[in-house]
């Protein structure tokens, strides 16, 4: 697939159809992949990658690196198409300046899972079908891919692309993989247990803002937490309250807009399962206001800027219904 993508990218550059290509590039290690802009065939030949480590959602990167006066090719995994659709709905990217190619995704590998196995001194990693081969200073290791796949990919919601100009590979389908199981587990706990759980998680937050930077829904010109005029700006959480506040408000601000791409948890250096906050909102919205998937179509109306006259009353929370 990677070679086909490179070929197509170069074709489009050569034809002048696009002048820039957004994709992934490898850094020092095989598993250290970052989004990048490619402007020439040489750059593509040298650095372009598409493999099971290309986790980053290119939609957010596209948003940050968009240019209006020229056309950019962007490769989008199914996940990323949802985010891209949502960004177009919110007028955050200029659709006319983009050429979108949908590409398949077979689940990405979580390097932390390999490391957690005690594997150190990694020299290279190759993923082929169901096998992942790791070459290290101390010898080779082989893993079954499903064992080292990222959690978000194990609970993948869709292999379907919601938007593209051109599709490479086969179109997939929306899937049901129990992505709310964790949320349900938490819901089943007592309030004290839940409080303990979240305190344990959120107290580790170092307010590095990685979640915010990676989140394709967090595209505000200026975040309320950075704006001294809002009265709630904070750089680092000085009290457990501020840890809660930041994450509650961040989740609330993306509620109804979050596509559940899982970037927040992927990038969190403290491994806080932030996606469980967003999924809670998604789950509540689905249950209370009907199934809703952000980023499914351009022009959708988010449930938070919508209503029906017979919506559930807020009481439902206190009374434990739902």
């Amino acid at each position: 697939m990677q070679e086909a993508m490179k070929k197509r990218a170069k074709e489009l550059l050569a034809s002048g159809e696009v002048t820039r290509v957004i994709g992934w590039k490898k850094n020092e290690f095989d598993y250290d992949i970052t989004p990048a802009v490619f402007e020439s065939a040489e750059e593509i030949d040298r650095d372009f990658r598409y493999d099971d480590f290309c986790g980053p959602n290119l939609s957010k990167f596209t948003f940050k690196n968009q240019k209006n006066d020229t056309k950019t090719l962007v490769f989008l995994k199914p996940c990323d198409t949802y985010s891209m659709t949502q960004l177009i709905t919110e007028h955050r990217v200029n659709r006319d300046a983009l050429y979108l190619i949908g590409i398949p995704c077979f689940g990405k590998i979580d390097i932390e899972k390999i490391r957690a196995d005690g594997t150190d001194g990694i020299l290279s990693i190759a993923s082929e079908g169901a096998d992942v081969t790791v070459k290290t200073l101390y010898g080779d290791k082989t893993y079954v891919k499903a064992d080292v796949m990222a959690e978000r990919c194990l609970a993948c919601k869709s292999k379907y692309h919601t938007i593209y100009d051109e599709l490479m590979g086969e179109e997939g389908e929306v899937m049901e993989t129990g992505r709310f199981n964790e949320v349900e587990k938490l819901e089943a706990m007592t309030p004290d247990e839940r409080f303990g759980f979240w305190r344990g998680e959120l107290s580790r937050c170092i307010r590095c803002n990685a979640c915010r930077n990676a989140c394709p829904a967090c595209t505000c010109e200026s975040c309320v937490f950075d704006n001294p005029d809002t009265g709630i700006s904070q750089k680092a959480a000085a009290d457990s309250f501020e840890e809660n506040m930041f994450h509650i408000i961040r989740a609330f601000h993306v509620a109804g807009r979050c596509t559940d791409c899982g970037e927040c948890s992927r990038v969190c250096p403290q491994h806080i399962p932030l996606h469980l906050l967003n999924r809670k909102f998604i789950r509540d919205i689905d249950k209370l206001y009907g199934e809703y998937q952000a980023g499914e179509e351009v022009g959708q109306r988010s449930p938070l800027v919508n209503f029906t006259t017979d919506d559930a009353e807020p009481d439902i929370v206190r009374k434990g219904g739902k």
Partner: protein
Amino acid sequence: MPISEFKPKIVAFCCNWCSYAGADLAGTNRLNYPADVKIIRVPCSCRVNPIFILRAFQRGADGVILCGCHPGDCHYTTGNYYTRRRMTLLFSMLDYLGIEKERTRVEWVSAAEGAKFAAVMQDFVKTVTELGENKRLEDRRCKKP
């Protein structure tokens, strides 16, 4: 602090058209409710940002209640419908984080419902008093020594 001495701090956001007028009517009819309740007037319940609610808890509130026109009767036609969704989701999130769900409430009080206003406030104060001090959403820096 023994429960009997505990006086909760309650912030009540009231929409100008229905609930604030309902609170006025409670006063006109001399219907008593605890002084722990302090009302903040907002044009519509939909003006209340979740940030305000968290801010109140941060600054030491033990309970926050939002009052608006009955659904369908909003002065601005649809404001309280948005309030209803926002607050349902926010309250559910607070509950998910293990924060006592009884500390937050939304009630619809019309301009004619002075008695309801007083009864709602009595009940809410009672509930919050029984819960005791807000510990789970407090900001220790804002507490008086």
